[in-house]
Structures are given as structure tokens and as C-alpha cells.
């Protein structure tokens, strides 16, 4: 007699924990019941992201790089499961290598994107990149795993925290990813992943006054309306591409701060 396997309950990832939706709702995807997040869950996720911002952005760049590298390690260990929940082994390998690539940028982008500015007066003047803050990410529908990694990695390597709306038809890979992230020393709340209906969640994420930037690349709903909502607190709106990999993707979610100080004796 064969053994009956123990199934996984697919839940949300908020504040480093795996709660069910407070609404008690689920929807079925790939034959599994998946949490259907509510507006309240979304607000909780934004609050968790804001709360984690100080810790995550305050870590040294070297440390953040190591944490991202560890996400790659955790994914490698679960590669077989990821392959089942995505389009296959190739997608998983691309996603893992992406983490490694972005991990290496953690302590380098500031040198590429910042500057020291030769002002025409006796002042020391420099420009440094800093995280924008809380970033809302609408992950692409497909590829559900690598598309999400491609949009999430540049956001968090820069010290931002994220609230992700996972692919609606393919949400399982995103929860598997949450489990890898949860065991990779990412501070709780730095990454939050919500599964559910896009149309229910996206407008509230776009309009949320405590979200600083928005990646609408994976938005399948009404893009003009989401961008209009984003204007309410002058969000930085990025139309991210699921296959793009570049330090300029990191730059999209950074602010530039310029500091002046007199030179004198």
C-alpha cells in the first residue's frame, strides 16, 4: 500500500510569517487551494514592509549581498520542487543565477550610480543612491517564478522592502519562493507576497499612501487607472520587464541624495 503524501497549505507571506488570508477566502490554482488576500491583508503587508525598511536598508551592502546569495542557495536546495511549480528546470536555473548576479551588485551599484560633484565653490559635494522605500511589485503572470525574481531582486538589493502581488494563475511558485526567502536571513517584512485576485488588490496597492514606488510591469488590469492612482502620493512608477537584468533596474527604485559641506580650516 502506497503512502498518502502530506500536502502543503499555500498561504500568504507577510511580516516573515505565513498567515492565511484574514478574509478566510481561497481560490483554486493548479489544483491547490491558495489564499485569496483581501484589502486588509494588503494593508498589513504594507505595514510590515514599512516596519522592516529600517533594518533591511540599514544592513551593510556586503551583508545584503550575502542574504541575496543565500536566497540562491535556498532555491538550489529546492530546485526540484521549483521545477514542478514553474515551467521547468531551465526557468529555475535562470532564476537562481539571477539572484547570484544581483547579490554581487549590492556593494557595487553605489559606485556606478553615485558621484562626487566638482562644484565651482569650496564645498565637498557628493551624490549617493538610497532606497526609495516600500515598493509595490505586480509580478508578471508568466514566467511565474523567474518573472517574479527578475522584478523582486533589483528592488530589494537596493535596500527597499517589497509588497508583491503574485501571478494570479500561477501562484504556487511564489509561495515556494517565500519559503526560500524565509530561510535566507531576509528580515521578516522585507519581502511580502500576496496571492489572490489582481483586480481586488492592485488598485489598493497603487493608491496606498505609504507605498513609495510601484512596478506595474505585470499589471494585467487597467494600467492607466493604476498609474492615475499612483499619482496620489507621487509614486515612482516603473513598467518593469520580466526578462531585463541590469544595474539600471536597481536604479529605478533608488533616490539620489546630494550632500554639501564647506571645505575650510
Amino acid at each position, binding site marked *: 500500500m502506497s503512502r498518502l503524501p502530506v500536502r502543503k497549505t499555500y498561504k500568504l507571506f507577510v511580516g516573515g510569517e505565513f498567515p492565511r488570508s484574514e478574509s478566510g477566502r481561497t481560490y483554486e490554482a493548479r489544483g491547490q487551494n491558495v489564499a485569496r488576500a483581501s484589502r486588509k491583508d494588503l494593508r498589513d503587508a504594507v505595514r510590515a514592509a514599512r516596519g522592516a525598511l529600517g533594518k533591511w536598508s540599514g544592513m551593510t551592502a556586503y551583508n545584503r549581498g550575502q542574504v541575496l546569495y543565500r536566497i540562491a542557495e535556498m532555491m538550489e536546495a529546492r530546485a526540484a520542487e521549483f521545477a514542478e511549480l514553474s515551467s521547468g528546470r531551465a526557468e529555475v536555473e*535562470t532564476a537562481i543565477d*539571477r539572484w547570484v*548576479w544581483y547579490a554581487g551588485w549590492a556593494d557595487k551599484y553605489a559606485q*556606478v550610480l553615485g*558621484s562626487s*560633484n*566638482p*562644484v*565651482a*565653490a569650496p*564645498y565637498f*559635494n557628493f*551624490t549617493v543612491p538610497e532606497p*526609495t522605500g516600500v515598493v509595490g511589485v505586480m509580478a508578471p503572470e508568466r514566467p511565474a517564478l523567474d518573472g517574479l525574481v*527578475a522584478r523582486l531582486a533589483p528592488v530589494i538589493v537596493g535596500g527597499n522592502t517589497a509588497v508583491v502581488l503574485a501571478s494570479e494563475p500561477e501562484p504556487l511558485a511564489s509561495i515556494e519562493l517565500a519559503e526560500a526567502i524565509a530561510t535566507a536571513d531576509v528580515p521578516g517584512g522585507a519581502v511580502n507576497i500576496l496571492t489572490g485576485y489582481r483586480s481586488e488588490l492592485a488598485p489598493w496597492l497603487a493608491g496606498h499612501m505609504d507605498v*513609495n514606488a510601484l512596478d506595474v510591469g505585470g499589471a494585467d488590469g487597467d*494600467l*492607466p*487607472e*493604476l*498609474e*492615475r492612482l*499612483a*499619482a*496620489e*502620493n*507621487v509614486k*515612482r512608477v516603473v*513598467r518593469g*520587464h520580466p*526578462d*531585463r*537584468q*541590469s544595474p*539600471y533596474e536597481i536604479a529605478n527604485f533608488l*533616490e*539620489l*541624495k*546630494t*550632500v*554639501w*559641506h*564647506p571645505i575650510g580650516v
Partner: protein
Amino acid sequence: MTDLERRQDRSPVPSGWDYAPAPEARDILTLEERYGLFIGGELVEPGSGEYFPTIDPSSEEPLAEVAQAGKEDVDLAVRAARDAFENGWSDISPAERAKYLYRIARILQERSREFAVLESLNGGKPIKESRDVDLPLSAAHFFYYAGWADKLEYAFPNRRPKAIGVAGQIIPWNFPLLMLAWKIAPALAAGNTVVLKPAETTPLTALLFTDVLRQAELPPGVVNIVTGDGRAGAELVKHEGVDKIAFTGSTEVGKAIQRELAGTGKKLTLELGGKAANIVFDDAALDQAVEGIINGIYFNQGHVCCAGSRLLVQESIYEPVIEKLKLRVKTLRVGDPLDKNTDVGAINSKQQLEKIRHLVKSGEEEGAEIYQPPCRLPDKGYWFVPTVFTNVAQSYRIAQEEIFGPVLSVLTFRTPDEAVEKANNTPYGLSAGVWTEKGSRILSMAQKLKAGVVWANTYNRFDPTSPFGGYKESGFGREGGLHGLESYLDLDESEARGG
């Protein structure tokens, strides 16, 4: 009378000095009676035939009539810009493009006195500021970006910089020519053509600038200038032929523009309002700090988006700072913008004066304590006495809203953490000031302040090489420096990995 005041009263304090009038001559300037719209290299009549007077805010005397651009005029200007972009400007070699910008920089330097007089006349700012700040910086901006025109591929590694096309640019009335330079110089250096809308109340230096373009022999249509009120700006924002919008102005209008462009995919940069904290620690060099506070809020009548309008003083030095500050405010000379001794000029417009009065009234009503030095104001024109509010709570409107006038709100703090929390407690994030002699504290504060520009032991410094722009609701994108080019370029990646 306080001790300090008594001591100062025995010596010849500046407030006791009388200054003979020292007006800058106006005869260097010849104004036309009426100005058209600058489209395709010529000043042309607006389609509607509608003109409005532009005035000297220090006397309310009309200076000239200026055209109100309508929908069809904006359309003509955009077409002229498109035509210039497609038929000539984008084929000119970058090195030649640079030389046009160098020419413009040089001509602005040569004619700087004329421009400075006009800037003060039409905008109300003291001549010493237009002469020593606005004009030199405007010329420097063109000179700086001129050099980038043929070096763009070195600015963004692994990218292929290309001009965007037609840039629509809308600028405010506080630094009319300087904001024009901030907008036009990087746009042209990147290879774009532009349609620029100056502010309704301060169009004259932009119109005089068209004569600089004539002298520089810039090809027609590369720069087009459409004057008018907000309606002209709205037409420019809506126009389908514009590839990029750059706006400097209020957060309210900035949000409206962002909404209007939602879904269009057009590039947008916004430089919006601010409510900067100027933070003074107990170990600061107090006299220097007081000068920095004065410069921070009374420079250009406080018509500065990055003005240090909230003073945060550490409690232990509150009394001496306030005492010194009040003494210093007494010495500010308010009056004729063209007088070389004037520190604080005229408020830019009647509308702005009413806004300042309204917010100052709210400050008094909410319970703040007002200090205004004795001050003789001219009978005509728009004026506001330099004002200091003490006893201000964070919730007061004068601590939350941008007044955009010579009005300082003073708050206190005990610890560095409290200073950071109060400084960041606003939807804005444009600038901040820190005054302390402790280096590690400067760097720690600079790191924690959510602001695009942090001035440490100085305030209100600007330079073409130095990126400027806001966090949060103060806007996005940077102007100045290498980073200021990015807003005017399409930056494809030459070999973006995986796609």
C-alpha cells in the same frame, strides 16, 4: 530689552545704519510694448489675439504685454519642435550641438547685467541675487551641459543614449531664467528640441532669451517658448506630439500632471514643493548657523521650493538662537528690488501675497507666536515683512504646508533621533539643513534625512554639477549633474543580459 540687544545697541548695529538709495540703472534694458509667442524661431501673434499685461510686482506698473498661447499655438510650437528635431537638429554632430550651447552660455555672460535687471524688475527679487546667483548659475548651466553633448556615451555605461524627441517644459516664477536654463540646457545637450512654458507672472527673461538664441544662430524650432497662464501649460501636457514632460512647480499641479500622463508611457520628471527642516545642534557655530537660517528662508523672499522653512533648534540653545535670529532679522532691508542694498524684495504676485497672508493668519490663529521686525514697506507693490513664528506645533499648517514666502516656523528637539523624526514628518522630501561641528553627526543625519539635497553647515547652494531633486511628494528625477541628463535620454541597453 535683552542683554544681547543692549550690548549691541551701544555699538553701531546695522539696524541703526541709514543707507542711501543705490538703485541699479534700468536704461540698459529696452522692452518691447508687446511680445508674441516664440515659435519656429520667430515671435508670432497668438491665434486668439489674446494678450495680458505683465507687471513689476514692486510697483504694480505694467512692463509689457505678453501673448496668451491657446491650443492651436501650442500645437504649432510642438510641430515646429518636431520639425526641427526631425529635419536637422538630430543630424547635427554632437560636437556642433555643444558649440551652440557654449555660445548661449557666453552670450548670457556678456548680457548678464541686462538680464539681471529684467529678472528683478519682472519677478521682484533683489538685484544682488539676480546679479550674483541667477545669472551666473544660468550661464554656468549652459556651459556645463554643453560639454556633455558629445560625451553622452561615457555617462551611462553599457547603454545607447538617444534623444527622446520633443520635450515639453513648464517652469515656475521664482527663478525664471535659471529654471529655463535647468530645463533647456540638458534637453538640448541630449539632442532634443523643446517647447517651454514660462510662468504666467515672469515671462520677460524667457522672451529676452529668444534674442540670445537669435545671436547664437540656433536653428529655428529647436527652442520654442509659449507664454500664458496654466491653460497653456495644460495644452502642452496633453499634446500627443510631446515625448517628455518636465515640470517644476507645486505638488498639487505635479500630481495633476502625473494623473494626466497616466497610461501614456510618456517620460515625466517632477520637481515639486518642499517644507525643509533646517536643524541646528547645540554644538553648531551659532553665528554661522544664524546666517544659514536667514539665507535659508529669506533668500528670494522665501520663494524657494527648497527653502529652510522649518527651523529645528536643539532645546539647550533655543534662547540664544532665537535672540540672535531676531536681531539679524531686524537688519534685513526690505524694499526696491533694483536697489543694490536690498536683502528682501517684492512678493512675486498679488495671488502669492494673499496665500502668504492666509497661512500666516492661520499660524496666529492656531496659537503660534509671531515676530515681525519694525519695517517700513513701500506704499505700492506686493510686500511681506520677514516673519518668524515660535511656539509652533508640528500639526500647525505653518509647519506642514509650503508657504513659499519669507516666513519661518521654529520648532525644537532634544535628541538627534527626535530631530530626524520631526524633519521627516512631512509628505515632502526635497531638502534639509544640518548645523553641527561634529563630523560623524553630520554624516549620520545626512543618511537619515529623507531629502534629495542635504546642506551641512551651509544652505541654498546650487551648482550645475550637483544633482537636485526630491524624495516622496517633492517629485522624481534629478536636475543638474550627470544624473540630470538621464531625464532627457532614451537609454536602451546594448546587451542587457537575458533580454
